[in-house]
């Protein structure tokens, strides 16, 4: 991966919709925490920035079992903010381009290389699979042109790669930080995020053959 990029893993949330009582990075899929899955899949990325908040000490402990050379970034206001705030905090003092990666997102290993090797800005999307999706609409050039809560061609899952200088502070969601910059090149990937318990059961099934 280019040395002008950082990856920001957003692991600060309380995981309230999932209802398992812990931050999603620590949830186990096939006996392995999601953060461990992610770190193993992103092992070639040099500047990994992990945004922590709820259960910060537990996430730190879990990460240090895998690698020590990460930068933990605190989102102390995690209860009142969403992933947009974590992305902003993780982007501060990062490299020129930042890839935002939700702490509940699992990307197919074959697609990860494509994400890390692609230059410039881009937005990733997948086939619709979640219960509570945000949708993306794309044009004929395969650019993402719109996000919607009600309908769209695909599901917005992330990751997104943006110039650090364009990441502004919001207490809201990452897609709201992308919207003013649309259209942006789109990239279809196989990715699954876990917002609800139904998602959790589905993802466990999806990754059986990884």
């Amino acid at each position, binding site marked *: 991966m280019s040395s002008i990029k950082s990856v920001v893993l957003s692991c600060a949330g309380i995981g309230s919709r999932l209802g398992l009582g812990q931050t999603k990075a620590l949830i186990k899929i096939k006996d392995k925490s999601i953060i461990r899955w992610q770190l193993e899949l992103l092992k070639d990325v040099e500047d990994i920035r992990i945004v922590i908040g709820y259960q910060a000490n537990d996430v730190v402990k879990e990460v240090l079992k895998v690698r020590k050379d990460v930068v933990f970034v605190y989102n*102390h206001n995690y209860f009142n903010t969403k992933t947009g705030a974590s992305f902003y905090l993780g982007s501060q003092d990062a490299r020129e381009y930042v890839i935002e990666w939700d702490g509940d997102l699992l990307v197919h290993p074959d697609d990860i290389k494509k994400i890390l090797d692609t230059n410039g800005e881009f937005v990733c999307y997948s086939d619709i699979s979640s219960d509570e999706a945000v949708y993306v609409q794309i044009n004929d050039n395969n650019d993402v042109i719109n996000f919607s809560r009600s309908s769209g061609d695909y599901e917005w899952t992330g990751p997104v790669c943006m110039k650090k200088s364009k990441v502004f502070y919001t207490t809201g969601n990452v897609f709201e930080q992308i919207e003013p910059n649309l259209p942006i090149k789109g990239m279809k990937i196989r990715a699954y995020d876990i917002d609800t318990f139904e998602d959790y059961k589905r993802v466990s099934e999806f990754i059986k053959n990884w």
Partner: protein
Amino acid sequence: MKFIFDLDGTITAQETLPLIASHFQVQAEISELTKETIHGNIPFVESFIRRVHILGKLPVDEISDLLEEVKLHRKVLDFIHENKKDCIIATGNLDCWIEKLVMKIGCEYFTSEAIVENNRVNSIKNILKKELIVKKYQDQGEKVVYIGDGNNDMEAMRISNVAIATGLTHHPANNILPFSDYLIFSEKALCRQLNQLF
């Protein structure tokens, strides 16, 4: 931009007071105090006075020579050497014990001060308030990045522009974490982050 570093455990790869205690075989008296201080259970100033009371009876020149040779975090030292004019050490340690060491590191430094008589610490003249060093540079219009791991770094980290808690030698004191922007456990990641701050 100025980078203010704590010394013990942040630039040095060993805590210096336990090293002195071990060299002079007074560990039993000091180890519990150090442990409780790192965990934030004894206020730093009280602990420091108690530790100096024990170690102050030991020969100053021998302590100074011992600490001159203490193991340092190599990559952190390289960063300081490459950015000497922007790096500052702020340490609660006594000037008479660590002056040789900090001169070897080569950047500007601020320490606590002792009155030495007959090669022994007679009394503590001043205990450094690290936050005053942060304030001094902020008043000059500098953005201050503070790097530390201990209880006595808390106030400096609270007011600094960027606060980096480090766990290079031991886990950082829990009471600094609410004031930290970043938490870093490896020299490699710390130096990468420091360079990205420019």
